[in-house]
């Protein structure tokens, strides 16, 4: 390609898309660099899938431009599709065809030469741990194996860009780890990956993240950059009754946000040195004497809550 190597792999500008009266995407701009794993993070309905489908060239935006390494995706979706691979939330496998036949079919659709297809499918099946199941019907695979087979089919034509829409939703933790190992290998071989996820632990694995809400990108940075940019400090309050702590801290001075997390409450305060003694006294006054305060590193979920407020992030 004639495109300089430091050019972004995907550049989307001002994407807008409505479905009837619902504005799913309200002006989204993104730049995904070559060879990075870029995450779209947001709650259901934030517009993740709609953005993915527009980038894949299956859905026309109402407005906006998409540039994929020099190809205008909106004008020439067919050309773009040869360069990228899109895996929807549920990869469409032919359940009455075998693993091998599914791979063969997708290889034919992308017109991958036979010799190359054989070598690549062997290599991909091996990496995905699916090699022994080549002759099994796709419908008889487990959820995680189906997802990996989908990935193999999506990669058979060696795309430069991989778009994954919530690829590990409903997949067990072991399969998820294996899936991510494959993604890292792909990234190392130079494939640009854009994935959407609702799992915060998965978001942490991305090189950069865009936090989406209600059809807009709220912020975009590396995971550590996002955490640094979060206002205030985070304190975990562990107590016998975390619900009571959560309720007691409502509206307390200096408290910017509260998030109930199992046996603890994450409290975001403007100044931890000053506020922790105050809050301890406040809780003691409400009859909660056993509260333990620990300063913690924020997770992506905390950043998200800080950005949107707990109700909206839920």
């Amino acid at each position, binding site marked *: 390609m004639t495109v300089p190597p430091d050019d972004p792999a995907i550049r989307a500008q001002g994407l807008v898309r409505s479905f009837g009266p619902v504005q799913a995407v309200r002006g989204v701009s993104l730049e995904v660099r070559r060879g990075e794993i870029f995450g779209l993070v947001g709650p259901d309905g934030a517009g993740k899938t709609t953005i993915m489908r527009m980038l*894949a*060239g*299956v*859905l*026309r935006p109402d407005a906006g431009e998409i540039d994929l390494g020099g190809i205008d995706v909106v004008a020439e979706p*067919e*050309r773009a*599709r*040869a360069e990228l*691979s*899109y895996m*929807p939330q*549920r*990869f*469409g*496998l*032919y*359940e*009455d*065809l075998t693993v091998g*036949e599914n791979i063969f*079919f*997708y290889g*034919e*659709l*992308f*017109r991958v030469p036979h010799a190359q297809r054989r070598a690549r499918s062997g290599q991909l099946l091996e990496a995905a741990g699916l090699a022994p199941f080549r002759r099994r019907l796709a419908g008889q695979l487990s959820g995680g194996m189906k997802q990996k087979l989908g990935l193999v*089919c999506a990669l058979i034509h060696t795309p430069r860009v991989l778009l994954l829409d919530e690829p590990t939703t409903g997949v067990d933790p072991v399969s998820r780890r294996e899936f991510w190992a494959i993604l890292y290998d792909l990234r190392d071989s130079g494939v640009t990956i854009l994935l959407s996820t609702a799992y915060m632990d998965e978001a942490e694995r991305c090189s950069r993240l865009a936090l989406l809400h209600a059809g807009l990108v709220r912020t975009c940075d590396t995971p550590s950059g996002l955490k640094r940019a979060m206002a205030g400090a985070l304190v975990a309050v562990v107590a016998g009754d975390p619900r009571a702590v959560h309720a007691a801290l409502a509206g307390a001075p200096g408290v910017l946000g509260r998030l109930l997390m199992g046996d603890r409450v994450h409290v975001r305060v403007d100044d931890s040195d000053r506020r922790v003694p105050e809050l301890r006294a406040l809780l003691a006054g409400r009859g909660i004497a056993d509260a333990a305060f620990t300063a913690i590193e924020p997770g992506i979920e905390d950043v998200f809550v800080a950005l949107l407020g707990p109700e909206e992030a839920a």
Partner: protein
Amino acid sequence: MFERLRAMLMKEFLELRRDRWAIFRLVVPLLIQVIVYGYAATFTVNRVSTAVLDLDRSQASRSLVSHFVATGRFDVVDVADRQEQITRDIDSGKAALAIIIHAGFAQYLYDGKTAPLLVVVDGTNSNTALIALGYVGQIVAQFQAEEMAKAWPAQSGAAPATVAVSLQERPWFNPGLEDRWFFIPGVLGTLTLVQVINLTSFAVVREREMGTLEQIMVSPIRPIEFILGKTLPFFLIGLADVVLVMGLGVWWFDVPFVGSPLVMLLGSSLFLLGALGLGLLVSTFSRTQQQAFALNFFLINPIFILSGFAFPIAAMPRVLQWTTFLNPLRYFLVVVRAVFLKGVGVAFLWPEFAAMTALGAGLLALSVLRFHKSLD
């Protein structure tokens, strides 16, 4: 273009082969329906249960009753001697028709006056009733002619007061007026249409349901390649249906096939374009196979009724007649019956061929347009 289409076709046939019941589901219901239509669908009314009340008890009245029995169309189930008995027979359904000969029937006949004969018929099945009444009219007319010949023998020189007109019926193309000859060609069109619409719409909607449609659409395949790959197998299956039903009709039911197989092939191909178009159109309106099923059900009955298969189009209200112009089956039935029984070719059937081509092209174009939209 060709490689991707070939990939689609290979996949379709692989899936079909993997489906062990496919051949069974494709062939058996078709065979059963042709056989049921061949044997059971008939307008001929035979063995009408008949009650007789002969109050005249004359030679003439007995002769009239025996005329009825001799045709084989009427079964005398009750010989009554009171009017109430007749009423009960009709009410209970024991008899569908009653012949009531009043006292003095023979006397009136020999006096040259109009002899009253009362025929009561159960009108709950108006079709059977009408046909049975038609037979009654024929039998009575024959009886009358015979009695007149007896009363005024030709030698006597005394001419009868009425002029007898003898009607010679000579139905062309179906000299025996066999219902089967009418039904089997009709069944051919109807069953093929139902089969092809169902197969096409379900197959496309299944891809949508499974998520494979979206997956294929993110490959460089063009929608038209997908549609061709999806419809070509069903086009071939549709042609196989036509051949199967034709074979059954000709060799099992002895329906003559006097036309050209080539004209039949051309007509069937054009008809299948419309059927495929309808199936695709249904698929663009359906997200799930249940929706497609409901839509097909809603579509197929009117297509059947407004096709001229069983109910003459000329007898329909004007507005309904117009709607039949949009029905591919209407034209195909004309073609099938004409090719089977009349043996006419394109020279006579070109208006039907043109109409089917236009309809097929229109339906396919519309469904391809809608298909593009339905991808969003």
